[in-house]
């Protein structure tokens, strides 16, 4: 054997041995050292969760009538992970789909876009979920449409169809309850990664607004999950877990479908009436509160929309309209998200503040046509003088000038523009005690707090705006450079952080910077109607299991008490009755047949409409009835609706006619507000 060859052979042998050793080492690393990681990876590959969304619980009214239910639908979905791989990115497939489903191609296209794919201002109707979820194109396809698609699967790659349960708002009594009920929508990435302890699955839906959102965790139930082991072709080889779906619980609300329908209709006709008399009347709200429990019996906001558009597949046009100023932003609930100057309805606060400041309820006060404060003249609403009158009359005829004088005197006592260290601030403190500037805590999402423009608020406001006012001629638009506005800017720059005499005087009649929501107003008047406690309004009454077992009852809750004496409360009640018997609301309530107490409000609004016209007054009417032993607080507000009495007053009167069944109307509650929980027949829906 030749040495050279033998040596080469040895070298090759060593090389081969080391290759084998390398394989051995790698095998050890994969299987033993790193084995657990690969075992998990294998499990991830093989197991699939098949999720069956639970049947969502019903929402029923206080008599058991269905407000929200489920119905069977056929859902056609698009799988973006398939469409994106096609040469034209699925354009031709979606074109065919829209023609089969008789839908607008643009809508179908947008519905199948992920929201982040689109520019920020063009996201109306986009898909809020993920690329790997089947994206619903419609949930209301006909059987024939679905067959057309499924039978020609080669023409419709990535398109699938399956029966689904869809949320349905049947409007059995004609009610919409748009802003109260809310709607459901797809699960988002944020939902999937939430840390609230609720596990969501991609093909589930979730309440996105209103009651559907607030009580989602009760309504949604628990999705059924079947975990299966699949092969590469996704064929099931083994089942490893199977938990059945648990249906959601039903929500019983204080809302009454018939009353809700009436309130919506009366709100709308009040708006139309105001329009007919030349007002702009762009929005409104009306609320009926059960003063004894805080239950929301009806809550309407104008404009509203049909909630079923969400599940039917919202079109681009519909989605745009929900938030467009031209159509009045129907998505916004004026009842809890609209802040308006309360105007004369606020005088219940001023009267109570005056009592605190030592003004006697038995004295008479001068009600001149105007009061000169500084260099400005503050006029009575109708510029009429009423002479020496008592406080009850002052409320009834809604005299402003009495409050101008009292609030101005108190402002001076508190130090005027150089306030004392501890000013009494009777008016501000009383307003806070009546709940102004504080959320009522209603069980609906996104309630606003309104605004209490006290000294603290003024300072904050000044910090934010002093740059603008102190450099007004540089910052303002050309059109804002009028002599009057420049003068106001100069004043604002000088002492905008102070509560000025004009601010105080305006505050006393609910004008100026004060903002209240209709729900705050309803709670305030409910407190006056009863024992002075500020109730927390609640829409939900109870939650019951599908088998009828009550798992949660919502007892009345209170957030505080009006800081007034019983005698003052009694005086307020009498005064509010006088408004209807011998004051500003007498005409509106003549011949009603039920004793009502209330207050008109006509709020001046500064600012301009989109077309440049000056804004019309806000029309308010806040009330409760029957005056003796009150049961209901009813508030109506029409933005740019004109006078309180003629627009909202008449609207509230008609609501009472329906509630009590007077003037030929059929009573909504002939036996009073039902306080027993209704029986829910899950199969049929509604029987009281």
């Amino acid at each position, binding site marked *: 054997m030749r040495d050279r060859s033998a040596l080469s*052979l040895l070298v090759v042998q060593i090389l081969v041995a080391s290759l084998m050793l390398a394989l051995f080492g790698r*095998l050890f690393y994969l299987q033993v050292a790193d084995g657990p990681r*690969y075992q998990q990876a294998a499990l991830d590959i093989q197991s699939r969760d098949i999720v069956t969304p639970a049947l969502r619980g019903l929402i029923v009214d206080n008599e058991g009538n269905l407000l929200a239910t489920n119905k069977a639908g056929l859902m056609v979905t698009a799988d973006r992970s398939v469409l994106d791989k096609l040469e034209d990115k699925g354009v031709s497939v979606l074109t065919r789909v829209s023609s089969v489903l008789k839908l607008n191609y643009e809508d179908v296209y947008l519905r199948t876009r992920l929201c982040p794919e689109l520019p920020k201002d063009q996201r109306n109707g986009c898909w809020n979920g993920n690329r790997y979820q089947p994206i619903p194109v419609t949930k209301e396809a006909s059987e024939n449409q679905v067959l057309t698609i499924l039978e020609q699967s080669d023409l419709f790659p990535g398109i699938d169809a399956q029966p689904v349960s869809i949320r349905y708002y049947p409007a059995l009594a004609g009610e919409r309850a748009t802003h109260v009920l809310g709607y459901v929508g797809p699960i988002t990435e944020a939902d999937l990664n939430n840390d609230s302890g609720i596990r969501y699955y991609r093909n589930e839906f979730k309440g996105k607004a209103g009651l559907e959102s607030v009580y989602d965790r009760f309504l949604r139930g628990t999705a059924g999950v079947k975990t299966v082991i699949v092969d590469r072709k996704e064929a099931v080889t083994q089942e490893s877990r199977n938990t059945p779906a648990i249906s959601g619980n039903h929500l019983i609300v204080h809302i009454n479908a018939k009353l809700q329908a009436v309130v919506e209709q009366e709100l709308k006709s009040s708006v139309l009436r105001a329009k007919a008399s030349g007002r702009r009347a762009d929005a409104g709200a009306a609320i009926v509160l059960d003063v004894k429990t805080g239950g929301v019996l009806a809550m309407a906001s104008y404009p509203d929309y049909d909630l079923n558009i969400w599940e039917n597949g919202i079109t681009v046009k519909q989605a745009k309209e929900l938030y467009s100023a031209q159509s009045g932003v129907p998505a916004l609930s004026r009842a809890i998200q609209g802040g308006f100057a309360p105007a004369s309805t606020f005088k219940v606060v001023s009267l109570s503040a005056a009592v605190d400041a030592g003004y006697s309820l038995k004295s008479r006060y001068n009600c001149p046509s105007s009061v000169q404060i500084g260099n400005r003249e503050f006029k009575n609403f109708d510029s009429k003088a009423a002479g020496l009158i008592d406080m009850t009359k002052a409320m009834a005829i809604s005299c402003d000038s009495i409050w101008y004088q009292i609030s101005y005197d108190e402002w001076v006592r508190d130090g005027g523009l150089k306030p004392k260290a501890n000013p009494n601030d009777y008016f501000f403190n009383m307003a806070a005690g009546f709940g102004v500037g504080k959320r009522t805590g209603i069980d609906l999402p996104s309630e606003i707090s309104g605004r209490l423009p006290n000294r603290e608020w003024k300072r904050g406001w000044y910090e934010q705006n002093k740059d603008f006012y102190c450099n007004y001629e540089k910052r303002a638009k050309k059109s804002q450079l009028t002599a009057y506005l420049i003068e106001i800017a100069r004043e604002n720059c000088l002492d905008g952080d102070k509560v000025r005499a004009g601010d105080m005087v305006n505050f006393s009649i609910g004008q100026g910077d004060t903002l209240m929501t209709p729900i705050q107003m309803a709670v305030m008047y409910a407190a006056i109607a009863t024992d002075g406690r500020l109730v927390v309004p609640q829409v939900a009454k109870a939650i019951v299991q599908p088998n009828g077992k009550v798992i949660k009852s919502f007892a009345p809750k209170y957030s505080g008490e009006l800081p007034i004496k019983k005698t003052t409360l009694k005086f307020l009640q009498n005064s509010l009755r006088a408004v209807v018997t011998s004051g500003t609301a007498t005409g509106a309530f003549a011949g009603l047949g039920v004793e009502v107490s209330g207050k008109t409000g006509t709020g001046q609004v500064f600012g301009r409409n989109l077309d440049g016209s000056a804004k019309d007054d806000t029309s308010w009417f806040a009330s409760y009835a029957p005056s003796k032993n009150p049961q209901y607080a009813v508030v109506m507000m029409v933005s740019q609706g004109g006078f309180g009495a003629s627009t909202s007053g008449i609207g509230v009167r008609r609501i009472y006619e329906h509630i009590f069944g007077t003037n030929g109307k059929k009573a909504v509650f002939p036996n009073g507000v039902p306080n027993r929980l209704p029986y829910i027949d899950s199969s049929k829906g509604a029987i009281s």
Partner: protein
Amino acid sequence: MATNLNIGHRGKDRRSFFAGSDRALNIAVLLLLFMGIVLVYAATRDWFASNGLDPEYYLKRQLINVIIGIALAYGTTLIDYRLLRAYTPVVWGLGVLGLIVVLIPGLGSTVNGARSWISFPGGFQIQPAELAKISIIIGMALILSERIANNDAPTDKQVVQSLGVAAVPVLLIILQPDLGTVLIISACVITMIAVSGAGLRWVLGLIVVGITGAYLAVASGEVSEYQLNRLRSFVDPNADPQASGYQLRQARITIGSGGLLGKGLFDGPQTNGRFVPEQQTDFIFTVAGEELGFLGAGLILALYFVILMRAFSIARRTNDLFGRMVCVGVIAWFSFQIFENIGMTMGLMPMTGVPLPFLSYGGSSMFANLIGVGLLQNVYQRTR
């Protein structure tokens, strides 16, 4: 010059079938063949059963392949390999003929982008490139073992001639194209030239030529997109997640999930779920990895180790240079093919379509491998 010709030695005792052959080599090969049959069955039974087909389809066919292969190996040992030298040109010529036939449209059929198979009626197919490996090894061994005068190394002319013997079939295989086989053959050629005693310059030169050739092939677009994707997914397993990257990732996960003891024979969920494509052929090792675990897959590596070390021992023992060169050729062929195949399933090597000797399902490679074993035993038996 080869002088110690011991023609006529047929083993000391021919009482039995394998008598006179290297027993350890035989046992290791037979064990692997047995494991291969079981693993091919494990890889295909659930898949075929779930498609309503005969679950034993692959089992039966692999059994036939093994029986024919063992017969061929036995046949190979019967004729003294030194007599075979005379027939070398015929063996080589047949190999080249097969490679030409496979390229003729209508005769050769295409699988995975390569025209590698000749189909015969009745579903029987052969892959000429597998058998061409033997032609090349014998042909090169013949030329490189000739010794002129008292030289202890082949002359440059011999080296060039031997390269020519390899070049013709390699070029034909490139035309298919079956780059995996080209890679294995190249490794064989370089190893044989290195062991033949030819100068180091030849070895280094060939390595440089090989690398340059590979680079030019990729740069000129001669390498198909299919091949490139396989290379890319080796560099970045996520590059082509649906095709070759998917396959490599699945292979690695399948092996890794086996752990120390495995999921148990026939009980591998990855295997039964058919997550690794072509699992009974090029990815048969993943079945062992998943179902038999580190112990079983390690045993397979150990058996290969035994085979290779026995082959080295045979090569070292023989005084006949031709016999040694044949052994070296077979060793290089087996070891690089084992390393490429198993290395590929574990992410050490890029993906090429070469079967795993003795284990992968398939006729041609089984026959070729067992003929290779037959050659080793032939040399063993005729060494005193």
